[in-house]
């Protein structure tokens, strides 16, 4: 009987965790979509940092050729 009680408590805990986990990832999905849309509407690039890094790389090698460092 004890074992049964414990196992049903375990099941409840696991089910609760499963729900919490699903809630979290569902929320993340909604937020990520929202931000992507907002970014597009504002005409901003999807990844502004990638753009900055490209600009910096271009400055280092302005002709666009890869620099070979030996």
């Amino acid at each position, binding site marked *: 009987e004890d074992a049964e009680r414990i196992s049903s408590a375990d099941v409840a805990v696991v089910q609760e965790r499963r729900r919490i*986990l699903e809630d979290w990832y569902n929320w993340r999905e909604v937020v*990520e979509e929202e931000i992507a849309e907002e970014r597009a509407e504002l005409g901003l690039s999807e990844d502004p940092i990638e753009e900055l890094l490209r600009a*910096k790389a271009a400055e280092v090698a302005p002709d666009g050729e890869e620099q070979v460092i030996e």
Partner: protein
Amino acid sequence: MRPVLLAGHERALTQIKYNREGDLLFSTAKDQHICAWFAHNGERLGTYQGHQGAIWTVDVDPTSTILASGSADNTIRLWEVKTGKLLKTWDFPTAVKRVEFNEDATQLLGVTEKRMGHLGTIVVLDIKIDPEAEQSDEKAMTIVCEESKATVAGWSYLSKYIIAGHEDGSVSQYDAKTGDLIYNVNVHELGSPITDLQWNQDRTYFITASKDKTAKLITAKELEVLKTYVADTPLNSASITPKKEFVILGGGQAAMDVTTTSARQGKFEARFYHKIFEEEIGRVRGHFGPLNTVAADPTGKGYASGGEDGYVRVHLFDKGYFDFNYEVERERLNRLAAQGGN
């Protein structure tokens, strides 16, 4: 998880920041220099000399070109990362407690201290990520904190909001374009200062640490409290780990604040909590005093802590860390893997 010990500061650490690639670490302390370190072996890359007081805060732009710092000498300074050259100094009437670049580092915010005759403010400066460029003298904006001074602040996703944590335990959301206060919400115990505010990677939510012994995960858009992490000691810092769903909390009671002789040792630990389940999952010992600052490597490989004891400890996570999953997480990962395999 053997740590690398960085002994380059003579006083208490105030803030640690990784660069975006996670290969460099910048630290500030109450001694008057900023240190730069290689994260993988703790070798010192250099120092940035010039401040005339305790340095409270540091941030680096996403391309690791320029560094900003704020100090008790009432200045914000801008440095070239590579050479250590001082590029610009902005003067304020009071100490600068926090600086942060927005996501594309076109702007920098600074939190200034409240003092007789001066209210606390959040100032915004226009920035050019170019060591050769002339930086603007003028402030782009000043937000005055009429109610309770800001202790920390940062920029949300899309640089849409400035979020501030206050001395009274509340959090404010300001319009980052106009500086108008949109919301102010009491999230921590009234009168318990917020000591840190750090973002998740896309800056849609953040974590606050407070002297009320809790850390909270809060959305940038609604200021909704999503999660609460309960500790048994006042917290000075909190950080969100990428790759794994954890948060790291740091704190501890300063010796002078401990009233009983039974001051328990071992409270000076970094605490790991599961971000989603809010449960403590582990602690890392090492410091001889409170942890003033914790930072998660943005690439997910490790974390660093800075203590009142003057040390920075850099940890690389081992396999056990990456393998750790709750049963329901493993279940979900297996399901995703099965879907991906089809």
